[in-house]
């Protein structure tokens, strides 16, 4: 190998090296440019989400306030004109419908997915809509008089369905853990729940179940829009 050959070899190596280092440099530059932009976008979205949530909270409070105002207008009217007969009827109907905050003695059941994946079927270690639905049904069987799931009041229209990894209750989505509160006779509800098929099934697949008795449980009223529940209906006079 003479000197001239060596020079050519080096020339090629250097050309190759030059190209590689340019590509490398450029790609790193691009990356560092990209990264902050995604992070920036996420940050922006988070801020926007926070803002929307705050707006939602404010609107809910405003609606609550207006509802109270409406209620007090009706109350004044009713006590001035019919000795409060109509508002008494209203309060009674609302209590049956689930439109009143209530409290009383009862139980709190907390359900959570199993800590370890089921070796046979991973799905079994997760809670499903049907499980929650059946637990709620057992509580009703045990004489519950008011029930809430993650503070969503269970009313006649309340659906419990799967929405991906979460469940939907009263059109709102919730993830585990599911806290089910029920007002009623604690002893009777617990014994009926523990004897039920669904309790055995959930225990069998290692779903975490925590049952607590409580002296004073608060269950909030239905928070959705009532008018959305009655369209398409017509009342028949009897």
């Amino acid at each position, binding site marked *: 190998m003479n000197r001239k050959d060596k020079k050519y070899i080096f020339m090629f190596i250097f050309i190759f090296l030059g190209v590689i280092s340019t590509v490398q440099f450029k790609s790193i530059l691009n990356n560092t440019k990209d990264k902050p932009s995604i992070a920036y976008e996420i940050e922006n979205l988070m801020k926007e989400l926070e803002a929307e949530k705050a707006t939602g909270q404010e609107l809910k409070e405003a609606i609550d306030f207006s509802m109270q105002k409406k209620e007090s207008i009706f109350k004044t009217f009713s006590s001035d004109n019919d000795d409060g007969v109509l508002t008494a009827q209203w309060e009674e109907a609302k209590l049956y419908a689930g439109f009143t905050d209530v409290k009383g003695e009862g139980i709190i059941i907390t359900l959570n997915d199993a800590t370890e994946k089921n070796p046979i079927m991973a799905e079994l270690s997760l809670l499903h809509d049907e499980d929650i639905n059946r637990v709620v049904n057992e509580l009703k069987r045990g004489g519950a008089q008011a029930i809430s799931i993650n503070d969503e009041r269970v009313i006649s229209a309340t*659906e419990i369905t799967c929405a991906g990894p979460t469940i939907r209750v009263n059109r709102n989505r919730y993830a585990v853990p599911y806290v089910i509160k029920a007002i009623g006779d604690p002893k009777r509800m617990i014994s009926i729940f523990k004897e039920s098929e669904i309790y055995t099934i959930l225990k069998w697949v290692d779903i975490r179940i925590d049952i607590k008795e409580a002296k004073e449980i608060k269950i909030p009223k239905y928070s959705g829009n009532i008018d959305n*529940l009655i369209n398409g209906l017509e009342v028949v006079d009897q």
Partner: protein
Amino acid sequence: MKFNLNISITIICLIMGVSVAWQYKSVYNNKKTASIQTVTLEDLKDKLILEKKSNEELRTRYEELEKELNGFEAAKGNIDLYKKNLNAEIEKARIIAGFSTVKGSGIVITIKDTDFGMALQSQHLLQIVNTLKATEARAIAVNDERIIPMTEISDVGNVIIVNGMPIDINEPVKIKVIMESQKRDNAIKTLGYIISELREKNIEVSPEKVEGITIPGVKNSRPSLNNDLLITE
């Protein structure tokens, strides 16, 4: 010359080694962050859309309420208007509570147990009722037992109990539902899964769209109506 050459080759190799390592690491990092970020980014966008939609609904509801309140303000002293509005509020609560007899378009689901009444279980009915609620049923009754907030559907032995009353399974069970007519197709489609599951167990489920269904209110004596343990504030 030879010494110089060796040094320069060493330096070149060093640079190359460092840059290869650098490159490798940055590619690895990118892959990692990209996969996390696309998930959270999509997730965040979904959440934002949902939140915006719910806020939109809240806003309309708030505006409606305000309009109503202003209406009261304007009609001060108009006793009839107050009475009408208050009565409307009572009626709404009575519908949801299940006291009022209601009428509307909907679906009648006939469930026939062809296995001598042995196959049909309470949880099948529970599943159907829950699906109907999820597809925006406005009023539901199982054999004219109105579904109210605390209605249970259970078995005692071989008998299915709804609102504390036994359901006769020697006759076909009829579930009546009232819902907005444009939502009926979706409801029937959503029921499809349960229907085909029950068919394998010799239970024939046939939903039928009907106009003008009447669903009676809940009877007064039902235990699901008890509320003596509830304290209101």
